[in-house]
């Protein structure tokens, strides 16, 4: 079967975002950018499905297509996924930071073309923290969804997914085709080896424009301003537990 993995280029998770002085957004000039960490997990799982690793039967997946919607440099993100083991890439070039609804509509158009059996994506992008695209794509396709996956078993035309939910774990069976969004415990993504990085250079990345898909990507939300959150100031170091308890009693929290 074929798996489609949408990947987003975002601020590196080690970088602390800083708000621009004019309150129009976050300053991304000269900031390290990387693949959204959850999307690395999605790519890794797709590659394991293809390799027949762990509980995935050999031959479960025959082709992995990665798609990114974003600036030209998002090709580097796609290239990373190809080096991890994906087969080919598609960049839908956009200089505008599209909202999840627009991203989901573009991804639906890609799904209509590519006809994958499974869309595997991150549960959340660590810049916008929306946690929305997978669920929205599933709705637009009228496919079942399984979000926050900690384990995925593909068999008998179903994805049996164990989900990380409030209170513990929930397992559900979604008939394929389905959309599955991945959580942190699914796997630990690999680092691409040098030979695979070299091989990835030869893999194909198609580049398209948003306009090629004829979907409405007009923003629905207006960003009024982006501000820094109230800062906490560092408090004091106390000598020992007895002093701590005294302070907490004075503060009225014990």
């Amino acid at each position, binding site marked *: 079967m074929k798996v489609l993995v949408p990947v987003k280029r975002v601020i590196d*998770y080690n970088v602390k975002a800083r708000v621009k002085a004019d309150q129009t957004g976050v300053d991304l000039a000269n900031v390290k950018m990387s693949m959204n960490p959850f999307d690395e997990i999605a790519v890794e799982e797709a590659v394991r499905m293809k390799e027949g690793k762990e509980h995935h039967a050999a031959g479960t997946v025959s082709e992995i297509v990665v798609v990114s919607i974003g600036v030209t440099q998002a090709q580097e993100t796609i290239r990373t996924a190809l080096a991890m083991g994906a087969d080919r890439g598609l960049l839908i070039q956009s200089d505008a930071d599209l909202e999840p609804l627009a991203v989901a509509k573009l991804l639906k158009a890609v799904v209509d073309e590519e006809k994958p059996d499974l869309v595997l994506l991150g549960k959340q992008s660590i810049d916008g923290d929306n946690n929305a695209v997978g*669920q929205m794509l599933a709705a637009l396709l009228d496919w079942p969804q399984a979000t926050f996956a900690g384990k995925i078993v593909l068999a008998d035309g179903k994805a049996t997914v164990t989900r990380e939910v409030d209170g513990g774990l929930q397992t559900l069976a979604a008939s394929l085709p389905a959309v599955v969004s991945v959580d*942190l415990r699914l796997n630990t993504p690999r680092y691409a080896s040098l030979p695979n990085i070299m091989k990835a250079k030869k893999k194909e990345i198609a580049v398209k424009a948003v306009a090629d898909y004829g979907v409405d990507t007009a923003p629905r939300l207006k960003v009024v301003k982006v501000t820094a959150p109230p800062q906490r100031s560092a408090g004091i170091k106390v000598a020992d537990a007895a002093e701590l308890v005294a302070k907490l009693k004075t503060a009225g929290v014990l």
Partner: protein
Amino acid sequence: MAVLVIADRDGDTVRDTTHKTVTAALKLSGDVDVLVIGQGSKAAADAAAKIAGVRKVLLAESAGLGHQLAEAVEATVTGLAGGYDAILSPATTDGKNFMPRIAAKLDVAPISDIIEVVSNDTFVRPIYAGNALETIQSGDAKKVITVRPTSFDAAAEGGSASVETVAGADAGKAAFVSEEMVKSDRPELGAAKIVVSGGRALGSAEEFHAVMDPLADKLGAAVGASRAAVDAGYAPNDYQVGQTGKVVAPALYIAIGISGAIQHLAGMKDSKIIVAINKDADAPIFQVADYGIVGDYKVVVPELMAALG
């Protein structure tokens, strides 16, 4: 303007996340209805009817809604959406699961995890792990919003709304298989007044429980964990506090052997008082802690237990 709040049901009652979402909803409009979904949810609907300020409670029951699967919830809620200008749910894993799906069906841009209602079309939400706050104005006729419960006070009890039955959709193309819920007599992480969290330093599941559980019991606290502790299997996934886990804002948060990565801080920096116990005096957690003890938790925690008496 009328607002529909989707309740966070807990057996025969509703969680206080529902009360907090009602508070957010009442900032949008005085006409707030609560939808209780599930199977055998009449008692929970009666509980929701007691929340002050609620106009009426809608009860949707069907086998397919039993586990709040997204497809059935979406079909139920979109069927009711015509009567509402905004649909709100707490930003629980259930809410995060079904609300964007509902939004897409309604061709609406969802607004995730709001921490403030500025006006009935403008909201504030954290982005970039809480390192920026975005004020956004929605141009959609209908709003679909998840609410960060820790940012709103709970609506009081004392209401007496009527309960009305509405149609509940059948299950869609996904079926519930099983669940494995963590049993605990302790308060819920999101609602607890005191939270004690353990990190990678604890080193093993046995040590995590041996250190954290007695301390939590003594304080009547909930137990949380860092991602590193969860990844390593010291604590269940449900304990993870942070950007991509649970957000907590208790009166007292005690971080033990946690370094204070931005993703962790995103989930706890709105706590009233933060205490950090860490052997590294330069750990970033101390930059947000009101009180810090530099030391080995193996020494400090037993001393703390003794000092608490």
